[in-house]
């Protein structure tokens, strides 16, 4: 192994560790208002990853907020009716999201791109209307806190979110680099060819929607406990389905790190700069980002870096 390769592998190992350490000591660097934004950024990252995992299998979803909100409501309902804490409530919510993912995958098994995407949007609105029908639009504050030590302060909550996000990023990376991820890649390129090479596309598609639903549901219960209250409107906000798409595509949706990068750039850019300058119109920039990325940089920043400098980030 020559020195250059050693250097590269060293950088490959050191850069992520350095970033993780930086993220963990962030509370000592920035103030509490900025830390609140970072905490939300982490939840957005998890939600974006749930979208990106679907995207790897060639599926586009416009309705991740459906899973997000259902899990958040279940967290509240199980707390009130069964007295469960955050961990059990989240497990229950995530399991229900997996079940719903199974049902959705059964219903939409034969649908191609646009039909699946709009079915997911219908799922988002269906769950929103269903929650309005059953719960009304009152404000609910009976939400369990994060487990024991982590609910103490904003800093500990931030660490809790960070730990979960890192686990999810590693999980997404493992999915991407595993045999399952390779099968997803082949499904994305050409579904019929993949099927004839022996890839069980129907089963993979089912797993994909279930995994994505579970991660989106986890993000929902994190968000709710972090905020401490919910209404039908706040938890099924259209932005939870809309913004994650430019987030993922700007960074380069083929890689989990691209999704994280896009979320950091757009969300932090929005909260720190755009929404301060254009308080009424800052939502436009997410649509603009989606259109411009699609027209001029369809593979995102990481794809551009790879073309330009030959650096490939998995």
């Amino acid at each position, binding site marked *: 192994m020559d020195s250059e390769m050693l250097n590269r592998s060293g950088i490959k190992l050191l850069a992520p560790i350095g970033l993780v350490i930086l993220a963990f000591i962030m509370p000592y660097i920035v103030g509490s208002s900025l830390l609140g934004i970072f905490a939300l950024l982490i939840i957005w990252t998890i939600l974006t990853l749930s979208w990106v995992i679907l995207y790897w299998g060639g599926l586009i979803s416009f309705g991740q907020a459906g899973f997000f909100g259902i899990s958040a409501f279940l967290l509240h309902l199980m707390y009130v009716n069964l007295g469960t804490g955050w961990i059990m409530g989240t497990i229950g919510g995530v399991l229900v999201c997996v079940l719903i993912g199974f049902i959705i995958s059964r219903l939409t098994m034969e*649908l191609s791109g646009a039909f699946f995407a709009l079915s997911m949007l219908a799922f988002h609105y269906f769950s929103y209307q269903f929650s309005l029908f059953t719960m009304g639009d009152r404000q609910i504050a009976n939400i369990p806190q994060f487990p024991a030590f982590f609910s103490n302060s904003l800093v500990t909550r931030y660490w809790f979110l960070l730990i979960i996000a890192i686990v999810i990023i590693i999980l997404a990376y493992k999915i991407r680099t595993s045999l399952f991820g390779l099968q997803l890649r082949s499904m994305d390129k050409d579904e019929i060819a993949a099927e004839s090479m022996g890839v069980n596309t129907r089963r993979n598609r089912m797993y994909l929607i279930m995994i994505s639903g579970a991660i989106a549901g986890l993000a929902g219960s994190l968000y709710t406990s972090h905020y401490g209250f919910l209404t039908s409107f706040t938890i099924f906000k259209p932005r939870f389905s809309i913004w994650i798409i430019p987030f993922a595509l700007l960074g380069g949706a083929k890689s989990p790190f691209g999704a994280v990068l896009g979320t950091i750039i757009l969300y932090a850019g929005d909260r720190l700069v755009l929404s301060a300058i254009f308080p009424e119109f800052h939502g436009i920039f997410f649509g603009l980002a989606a259109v411009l990325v699609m027209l001029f940089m369809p593979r995102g920043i990481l794809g551009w870096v790879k073309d330009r400098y030959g650096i490939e980030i998995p």
Partner: protein
Amino acid sequence: MVSGTVLMQLAIFSLSIGLLYALVGVGMAIIFGVMDVVNLVHGGIVILGAYMGLVFINTFEFNLLLFALPIAPIAFVLGAILEIPIIERVVGKGHMVSMVTGWGLLTIAVESLRGIFSPNPQLIMFTISGNYGFELIPGVQLPASRAGVILISIPALLLLYYFLERTKLGLGIRAVSQRSSVSELMGVNPKRLRWIAYGVGTASAALGGVGISLMHSWVPFYAHYYTLIAFLVAVIGGMGSIPLSIGGALLLGTVYTTTAYFVDSTFAMVLFFLIFFVSVGIMGRRRGE
């Protein structure tokens, strides 16, 4: 037991809302047929049409439907402006690119309307020469808003049908939607027809939006909901057939109205999305096609 007057009342309401859905959905069906693009901006144009109606009514204070006349040409031009630089670039690049672009455009439309007109619900109190409604027979009301919707949508749908079935441009549009490559050999210019078809679809969507502005209050985020309705109507009509789309839209309107009357309007929405799942699941394109 439901009385006859209630049934007639429900029939009037079903007809008006069904015609509105038809007007919104037919444009989507035309655009999908010609360009193979699921036009996600559609709902945004619908809501834009509603706001145009609001502006025209507040500015000119017409109490007749004349204000609806300039909206269709304005929307046609807007559609052409959208199509030529943006949508034309994503035609034939696959559903992924066109969908995300459309989704981005929809977001731009919704957010700019939200910024300009505030996120609050808007409502027009529409009257026809001072009347809020007419009593057709004792117990059966025809509100002015519903009459306005019927008066806008029936001529618009007839005109659209005439345009597609009886004119040369309509023949070209049908040829392109059947097989673009062969129609090109027959001397049709698909590029030109694409923006004309897109403009026509956009104009019908904006007229549907005017109907919405008369019928019920709206907020910018209804755009997503109307994209779904337009898509559902187009799917029921087999992604291209206008008479079938209109029939499906009338059926949807009837289901919505009767459920809202007998059960609850929120439950009607829940039922609506269940219908969406089932019918898109049955009639959606097979994978790999």
